Each structure stands twice: as structure tokens, then as C-alpha cells.
């Protein structure tokens, strides 16, 4: 089971990508982690592309549009909404493997399994307010342009408020991760990233006024409720993708402190399968 320990592993080919991928698929002990990490990277890029470029629902439009303007808004991005969100629906399930990878990072820490499990369930539910409800509602809005404009506006409100106003999952999720990192003695993540989780959690609080204001900095498209929040989230996401990659490079499949990158063993020590479960 530990191919590298058996000593008959061909060297990793250089150059042509498919052969390298095939090599990793066959011999890389960390392939499960790399599958998770690449899913995260591809997904976040795709998510940005679909929401910002294809569906053009981000940055969000004004909450104060009149019903007629809302109909126009749906009309302007008819195809983008219908096809963009269809792709979101196909790849949306990928969040499962992403969250599993992040939950694994918590399992690798010296903390209780409760952290990994809470994180897993919280973020499994986060896909609904995070994209799926908005996708369904925008699809319904776009599919019948002749619908009563007042109802179109109801769908418009539903879409953006479900997306921006339901931050509890991200708030608690960040706090769970923060606590796990601060308590961890295995050095899986640097402590500063634990504190960065707190910054992220605090900006999730700041979105709440989107329920109250229809214009200004606190509305769902506002400078504070959207732009600053999104800026922090992007910084946070880039940080954890980088740190997760480092974690996978350092991973030794043990249960003690994670070795440093410079001292990380090239080969994983053979561990029994039971220990890995």
C-alpha cells in the first residue's frame, strides 16, 4: 500500500502534464489531499468566473431598483443567469470534497474531532445560502421574463438576501476553525491564520445590516457590507489556499507535530491503514 516504501517507484516524469498527473495518481501518497486542494483552487476560480463574468450577479446590483428595472436587470443577463447557474449547479457538489479537505486539516491537529465534524457539517449547509438558493431563484426569475414585475422584485430580493444576509454558517465556521488552530499543538497552520479567521468572522457580522438598508454603505451592494467584506474574504481565501498547500507538502501522516517544510521527509513513513482512518 505504501508504494514509495516498496522501492520500485519510477521517478516522477517531467514535462508533459498528463504523464505527471498519471504518475501522481499511481504513486503519490498524498493524492487524496491533492485532489482536495486542486478542487478548491479550480472551484474558487470557477466560482469567481461564473458569478462575476458569466451570470454577472457580482458585484451585486442596487437593492433600490424599481420593479421595471429589476425586470430589465433579469433581461440583461438572461442567458448568463440560466447557463452560468446551471454550471454552478453541476460543480456545486464539489464543495463536499473541499470541505472534507479542510475538515481533514482540523483532524490533523492535536484537537478533538468535534472541530472537524462541526466544520464539515456547517460548510456542507453553507452551500445553500452561499450559492444554491441564489442560483435557483435567479434561474426562476430569468426563465419567465413576462412574470409580474412585483414578483420579479420579490425573487430579486430573495436571491440577494439569501446570498448576503445568511452569514451565520460562515461566522460560526470561521470561529470553529480559529479555535482549532489556536488550540492546536501540531503546528498544522500558523497561529496568525487562526486570528485571520477572527477577522473574517467579524466581517460576516458586518453584513447583517443588508437586511435593513436599501441604499448606502450598509446595503447589500454597499461599500461596507459588500466591498470590504469581499476584500477580507478574498485575502482570507488566498491565505488558506496557500497554507493548505504547505500543509499537504509537510504532511507525514503521523499524529505528532507536522514537520517543517525544510525538514519534511521525502517519503512518508509506513503507517498502518488503521492509523490513517
Amino acid at each position: 500500500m505504501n508504494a514509495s516504501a516498496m522501492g520500485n517507484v519510477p521517478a516522477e516524469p517531467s514535462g508533459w502534464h498528463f504523464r505527471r498527473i498519471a504518475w501522481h495518481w499511481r504513486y503519490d501518497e498524498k493524492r487524496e489531499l491533492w485532489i482536495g486542494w486542486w478542487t478548491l483552487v479550480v472551484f474558487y476560480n470557477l466560482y469567481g468566473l461564473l458569478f462575476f463574468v458569466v451570470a454577472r450577479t457580482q458585484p451585486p446590483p442596487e437593492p433600490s431598483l424599481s420593479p421595471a428595472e429589476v425586470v430589465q436587470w433579469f433581461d440583461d443577463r438572461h442567458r448568463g443567469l440560466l447557463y452560468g447557474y446551471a454550471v454552478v449547479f453541476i460543480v456545486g457538489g464539489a464543495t463536499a470534497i473541499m470541505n472534507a479537505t479542510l475538515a481533514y486539516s482540523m483532524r490533523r491537529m492535536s484537537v478533538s474531532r468535534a472541530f472537524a465534524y462541526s466544520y464539515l457539517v456547517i460548510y456542507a449547509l453553507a452551500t445553500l445560502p452561499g450559492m444554491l438558493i441564489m442560483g435557483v431563484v435567479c434561474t426562476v426569475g430569468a426563465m419567465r421574463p413576462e412574470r409580474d414585475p412585483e414578483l420579479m422584485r420579490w425573487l430579486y430580493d430573495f436571491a440577494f438576501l439569501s446570498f448576503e444576509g445568511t452569514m451565520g454558517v460562515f461566522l460560526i465556521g470561521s470561529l470553529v476553525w480559529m479555535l482549532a488552530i489556536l488550540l492546536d499543538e501540531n503546528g498544522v497552520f500558523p497561529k496568525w491564520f487562526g486570528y485571520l479567521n477572527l477577522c473574517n468572522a467579524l466581517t460576516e457580522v458586518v453584513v447583517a445590516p443588508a437586511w435593513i438598508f436599501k441604499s448606502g454603505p450598509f446595503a447589500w451592494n454597499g461599500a461596507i457590507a459588500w466591498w470590504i467584506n469581499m476584500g477580507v474574504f478574498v485575502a482570507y481565501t488566498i491565505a488558506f489556499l496557500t497554507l493548505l498547500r504547505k500543509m499537504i507538502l509537510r504532511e507525514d501522516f503521523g499524529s505528532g507535530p507536522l514537520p517543517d517544510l525544510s525538514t519534511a521527509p521525502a517519503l512518508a513513513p509506513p503507517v498502518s491503514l488503521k492509523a490513517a482512518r
Partner: protein
Amino acid sequence: MRRTDGEVLLLGTLPVVGVIWLAAFLLFPGFVHPMSPTMSAEEVAAFYRDPENLPRIRYSMILFNWFAVGFIPILALVVLQIRRMAHRTPIFSYAIIACAAGGPTIFLMANLFWLLAAFRPMRDPQLTQMFNDLAWVTFSSQVGFLIAQSVILALAIYLDRQERPVFRPWVAHFNLVVAALLTPAAFAGAAMTGPIAWDGLLTFWVRNVAIGLWIVVMAVVLGQAIKRQRADDEAATT
């Protein structure tokens, strides 16, 4: 009592839940000839107001409301089998748990929209039509978690490199085929007629048959895997 006894019991609930699902499916008047997205608001309202349809809509959806999550224990059994595979990390079993939480929640939302439409059918037809749209789009297009669980299971099986893998490779191939068959349904909102529309061949018939087939096939291979696990456990204790 052995641990696997409970698992066999859970697996045994699947035929029961399956029969209830089938009954609810047939009971709903808008499924056997799936309602067309091209119906006008008045036609949709008339569908819900029809005294023949209304009780059937309500009772079928109440049944779905009760038993929609009946699928979760089966996914839990899949998780346990994945944990027996020769992996270095629990990532795949975690990922199936995440799918188990997300998928049924979305199905419940579709169920909720249908029941809302049926609760006051005398409402403005435009409203009834909107709830009907929300229900159908949620029901049809939300294949993401189903696709994900098939793909993740397939990956887990391919990477289960031991002498006697938990599932045979064909189960992985089968899961990938199912994932491919589910994919077109995501575009349900993009067409009002044709195979992609929510009453179309691909979105309605292929998708639902694929889900049904997946349940039957997975029940059989799960049953075999649990049986083998019991034999192994017994051999280990004696």
C-alpha cells in the same frame, strides 16, 4: 449483537423507503405526465385548484416530506464502506457525509414550495406559478450533490488499492455514468421545451431513472459488501 447487524437493518429500510417514494411519485398528479414549463399561470393555478389534484398533491408531498431524508442512513452505510478502503486520509468519507447533509436539504426546499403552492390554491395565479417554478427548478436542477457523491465514490473506489477492494471497479464506472446522466438536468431552467426542459427526456426521465437505478445498484453492492464484512469479522474472531 454484531455491529454489522445494525447496518443490515438500516439497509433493510431502503426497500421500504423506496416503495413509499415510488408511491408518492405516482400519487403526485404532476409527475407521471410531468407538468410542462410552458403552462400559463392560469393553467398552473387550475392544476392546483382542481379538486381531483389538490389532495393528491398534498398527500404525496407530505409523504416526501417525511421520507425524503430516508436516504441519509444509506449514505452513512456508503461512508462506512469507504472507511474500509485502503486510503491514507478520511477525506472521501467526510465528503460523502457533506453530500448527505446538503442534498436532502435541497430536496426538502422543493417539497416546501410545492406544499406552499397547494396550501392556498385560490391565490393569484402568478404566485402559484412562481411557487410551482421554484419547486420544479429546485427539484430538477439540483443535481450537484448527487453528481458529487457519485464522482467521489468513484474516486474512492479507484484509489482503494488492496487485494480485495471493498467495491469492484465496475461500481466506480457505473457511478461515473450515473454522474454523466445527471448532468444535463442542471440546465433545467434554460429551456422551456425539448429534452432539457424540466419535463424533458433528459432532465426528467433520464435523471429520475438514473437516480432510481443508482439506489437499486448501490443497495445490492452495499448488501454484498456488508455481507463480506461480516464474514471477515467472523473469521477474525474465531
